[in-house]
């Protein structure tokens, strides 16, 4: 505790506060740019910190990191173009909210969610770092795979009104996820010999293509050509009923996000999706989901931020980068001759605690700077529709092109965008496709890795206590409706005439 206070003393000097503020602003500004996620933001800004002393540099990084993540959510909400993979889920509810004139509320829910998730996550770093360091490495391939199975079960709740069309969409996503070199054997799959496809198609590209490009084309086909009516900008702040609906999702986020961030290969995509599904299940406003339910923004954003905090635990205590951003930060540490790992807390304790203290400060600055900006940002949507959609297409194209300077990426985006148009026309929900792209490759990888570790024995999938627990939970979820029926209570009025089982 004393060390943390010392950390605050270091981080609260005017210079360091200034660094943190610059970091947050730069991070948000760059995170808003298309195609540049937090990892790239940190990497691109790395040169600025050359010649700075390490403490100041890392305080600035923490600001850039959180700012970059928040910038990604901003475009997700306003333009339906997620800036990074952790913000993909946010677009699902955030963008409809913005379209209804509830943009400021969506942005505020995201900003406060970010703040809450980050603060709780950082508190957990302080309290749990040694514990996490010890147990994070116990989670292995079978455990991951069990979680993936659980996630696939959860997909059933986002399939939409027509199951068969939902499953079709999921399969389209899984197909896109197959593209690229097989990670375990290096065999080419659906690459058609093209080097451009060897790394697969990035989930952000798929999300932007399906969400933004697909939507722009669909709007073009049925543009409402009535007198132009700007999107109303309603009251700027969260109302009492909004707060009532969001405080629980904000607090639940870290429960899902933090552990995922802390375990190797956890990342933010899967926990944000799980958070979304959880909030949908628990919400009293289920009918609003898909049309702009504020819980669907608050929960995933808090989860994403807490997962980022979890990432830092494993990086600092084990020297283990679990996400691309962490890998870049690790490289930055090494530039200063500092090796994160089990000895870091002893050797560089002053720096570490200053960094942790600056996380608190960075998050607070992020909230303070961005909350007042939310209504201003939301005014962006008042521009005329032709400019709005032209801007979205422009933005999406720059994002796809800038990263690799390759026209091929634009064509991939176009083709997937056309697919998105077709899916909208024929009532195939877009969300399952994205989930397929996220879950498919990692589920396959973890399953095959588990089987390889056990040298082909199927027991390799269920040989850890954790995985067994997860499978028991899955069984309970699957059997629950049955038990309910057998118990003779009134049968739930959910007639589902579709005969297919959804266990893709």
């Amino acid at each position, binding site marked *: 505790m004393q060390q943390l206070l010392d950390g605050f003393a270091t981080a609260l000097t005017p210079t360091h506060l200034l660094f943190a503020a610059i970091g947050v602003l730069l991070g948000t500004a760059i995170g808003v740019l298309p195609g540049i996620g937090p990892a790239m933001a940190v*990497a691109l800004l790395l040169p600025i910190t050359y010649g700075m002393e390490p403490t100041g540099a890392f305080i600035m990084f923490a600001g850039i990191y959180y700012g970059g993540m928040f910038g990604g959510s901003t475009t997700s909400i306003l333009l339906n173009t997620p800036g990074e993979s952790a913000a993909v889920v946010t677009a699902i509810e955030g963008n409809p909210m913005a379209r209804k004139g509830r943009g400021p509320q969506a942005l505020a829910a995201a900003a406060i969610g970010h703040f809450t998730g980050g603060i709780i996550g950082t508190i957990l770093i302080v309290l749990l770092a040694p514990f996490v360091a010890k147990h994070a490495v116990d989670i292995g391939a079978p455990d991951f795979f069990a979680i993936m199975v659980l996630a696939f079960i959860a997909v059933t709740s986002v399939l939409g009104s027509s199951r068969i069309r939902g499953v079709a969409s999921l399969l389209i996503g899984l197909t896109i996820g197959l593209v690229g070199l097989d990670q375990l054997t290096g065999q080419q799959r659906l690459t058609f010999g093209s080097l451009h496809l*060897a790394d697969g198609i990035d989930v952000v590209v798929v999300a932007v293509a399906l969400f933004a490009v697909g939507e722009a084309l669909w709007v073009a086909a049925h543009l409402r050509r009535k007198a132009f009516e700007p999107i109303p900008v309603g009251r700027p702040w969260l109302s009492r009923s909004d707060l009532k609906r969001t405080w629980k999702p904000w607090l639940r986020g870290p429960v899902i996000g933090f552990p995922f961030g802390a375990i190797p290969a956890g990342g933010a995509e899967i926990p944000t999706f799980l958070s979304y599904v959880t909030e949908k299940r628990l919400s009293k406003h289920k009918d609003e989901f898909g049309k702009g339910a504020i819980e669907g923004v608050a929960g995933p954003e808090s989860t994403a931020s807490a997962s980022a905090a979890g990432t830092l635990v494993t990086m600092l205590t084990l020297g*283990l980068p679990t996400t*691309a951003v962490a890998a870049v930060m690790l490289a930055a540490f090494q*530039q200063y001759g500092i090796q994160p790992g089990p000895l870091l807390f002893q050797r560089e304790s002053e720096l570490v605690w200053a960094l942790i203290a600056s996380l608190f400060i960075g998050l607070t600055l992020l909230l303070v700077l961005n909350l007042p900006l939310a209504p201003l940002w939301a005014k962006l949507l008042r521009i005329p529709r032709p400019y709005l959609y032209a801007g979205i297409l422009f933005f999406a194209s720059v994002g796809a092109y800038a990263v690799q300077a390759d026209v091929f990426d634009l064509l991939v985006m176009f083709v997937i965008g056309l697919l998105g148009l077709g899916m909208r026309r024929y009532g195939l929900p877009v969300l399952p496709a994205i989930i397929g792209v996220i879950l498919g490759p990692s589920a396959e990888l973890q399953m095959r890795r588990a089987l390889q570790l056990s040298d082909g024995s199927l027991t390799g999938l269920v040989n850890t206590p954790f995985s067994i627990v997860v499978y028991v939970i899955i069984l309970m979820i699957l059997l629950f409706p049955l038990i309910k029926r057998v118990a003779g209570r009134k049968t739930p009025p959910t007639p589902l005439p579709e005969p297919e089982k959804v266990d893709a």
Partner: protein
Amino acid sequence: MQVKTWLAVAGALLAVLLVPPLLTPGADSGSTTQVRSLRVLVPNAPGGGYDITARTAAKAMEDAGLLRNTEVFNLPGAGGTVGLGRTVSERGNGKLVMSMGLGVVGSVYTNKSPSSLLDTTPIAKLIEEPDIVVVGKDSPYKTLGDLVTAWKANPGAVPVGGGSSPGGPDHLAAMLTAKAAGLTPKTVNYIPFDGGGELLASVLGGKVAFGVSGVGEYRDQIQAGTLRVLAVTGGKRIDGIDAPTLSESGVDVEFTNWRGVVAPPGISTADRDKLVDLFTALHKTPQWEEALRRNGWTDAFAPGEQFGSFLEEENKRVATVLKDLGLA
């Protein structure tokens, strides 16, 4: 109205045509012996190994006054072969180099890349990093001998983890070690992880029997005693790590992961000499020495021709291993 439209279009056209070039510092075309501007292509994402090498070298060159203007840019994809393709297509461009390493050699085969490193003009090998054979502290294997005995008895039950995909440095190191120990590479149960970090977790958690990876990310864990190094794969022991080389332990093979720079094919001899001289000069600067020390890299400088023949040998060696595995 009409006039206004034309004015607007003309203004727009002028803006898009003139503003970017006017506000961008131009590439100069002086013909002095000194290289004044250089573009460095990095074939993986910002923060990756080739990226750090390139940016560190560029900075050292600028600090030492060897170059005025370097631009490092990333063109990631397909294990570096997308960047390689671009380099090869820039035939004759004497102001471009690509940062690369052993990983790209393997990727050429696994990605079935149409362009090969042998097409490029080798400029210099810069650094190398030996791999280590490493186990968790609770592992039953105390020496490399223990491990090899168990490995030979039942290769399938001894899963090997590596931080690179098939064809990458860790994969090659594991396979070369297996071959030298008398195992058929095809029987090796190699499990690729996404970088040394993710592998580290599996080694610490005892999920894989042992790991093969670069020493960089592991130093701290080794010092803390949570990891045990059974052998280093290079020809020499590593300072600060108490482990024999593979050859000393009776497995006769030497392997290091290295990084260097190549230039596009077909550049003039003068351009090539300028570039080789530039990197030779870089090698002698105190800034570069300092960078080596800070990043824990081993100096392995080899200029032009020397690097070229080294590259050819490595290419052959990689091809042989990958052919055994059905990957090339």
